């Protein structure tokens, strides 16, 4: 299962968890699963039109997913995503 590393300011919405295991084989699916598990996070990650907010930087390993295939970047089983606000 891929995991998402949650930065301190957003942990208030994940029950204090710093790392959340998610299901999904793309960045988009993983973030969407995160927002489903922790609904209070959704409005902080996505705009009203469903776009990922501009201040939300998502890294896969060391790379900004904007420089990979964006939210369509494919994830492997043990990949670690990280949100950097």
């Amino acid at each position, binding site marked *: 299962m891929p995991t998402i590393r949650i930065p301190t300011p957003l942990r208030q919405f994940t029950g204090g968890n710093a790392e959340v295991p998610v299901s999904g084989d793309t960045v988009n699916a993983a973030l969407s699963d995160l927002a489903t598990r922790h609904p209070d996070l959704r409005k902080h990650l996505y705009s009203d039109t469903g776009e990922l907010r501009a*201040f939300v930087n998502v890294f896969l390993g060391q790379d900004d997913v904007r420089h990979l295939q964006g939210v369509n970047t494919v994830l492997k089983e043990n990949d670690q995503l990280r949100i*950097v606000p």
Partner: protein
Amino acid sequence: MSIALEHIDPNSVDLSHEEIKRYSRHLIMPEVGMKGQKKLKAASVLLIGTGGLGSPLAMYLAAAGVGRIGLVDYDVVDASNLQRQVVHGTSTVGKLKVESGKERILDILDIARPYDIIIDGTDNFPTRYLVNDVCVLLKKPNVYGSIFRFEGQASVFWAEHGPCYRCLFPEPPPPGLVPSCAEGGVFGVLPGTIGTIQATEAIKLIIGVGDSLIGRLMLYDALDMTFDTVKLKKNPNCLVCSPNPKITELIDYEQFCGMPMNDHQDEIGSGEGWDITVQELEQKIKTNSGVKNFRLIDVREEHEWEIAHIEGAQLIPLGTLAARMNELDSAQEIVLQCKSGARSGRALDLLRGAGFRKIKNLKGGIMAWANQIDPSLPVY
């Protein structure tokens, strides 16, 4: 590959015998040597913010022999600063952090122009964008650091050689999402770690050694004791550092971020008509012989409740309010309260959005209550 500030001329200064003795542990390292130490003496660094990050920065940069250090801060020393701001002490509480604290921010371009390096030791988003834009416009390196609770970040933003702060953060987070250190707290040693990393990066740039943090963001977690770095790239559409920038002069940063350029958030929160003063609340409690016929909801965190709380209040932390709204009755009058009024202002907005109308925000929060009504409560 090392990146150095090429214009710093080591031959413009000399080292005295006293200085040679003082810096001998630098001088015997080939990476520094006489040339590097003279560059440090010839260099000038501007520190924006002289708080948690600025303290170790100022001390280590001065100790390392940087010839000229400028300090910018608007604030006075508060007792709650002393747990981490190690250049200040009990005897200086209430005094201006720097003499230049009165300098108007509009003069910042002129203030920054003569310095070789600008260091961002600030604690709020508007000033970070300001420092970034100043550095991009003046083509100077911005040694960046930020801290929150147990986590810190550091990087070197230098548009001439790599990305700038806006490449990574085109927009600030919405007001209220990322609390200030005053609101969210900060682990006392953390600014020491991050500030020291910033000092390291500044000195590396001056003497021209090692791999700079340009193009990398260092992420430090004090609880896990992990240092991770992620790669940063220039944003080809960056508003300030791309070939066709939209921002070519300084803007109104408080307006851009929707928040003030400081960590005093007492004035944020509800609008006109939604406030209740601590005196009015005291009167209300007297009239009702206690917190009766209305609710007093404290939206701080449990660990803050343990420091102090107002008798009769009920704790519903802001993060849980949306889920616990069903515990509140919109027909009943509700007074919302936090530490200083910012979070309860957001709670008020949340409840207003849900149709609540008989709601008030306690102006100044429990800090105002402790200062003006009940001095037996501690101020934190």
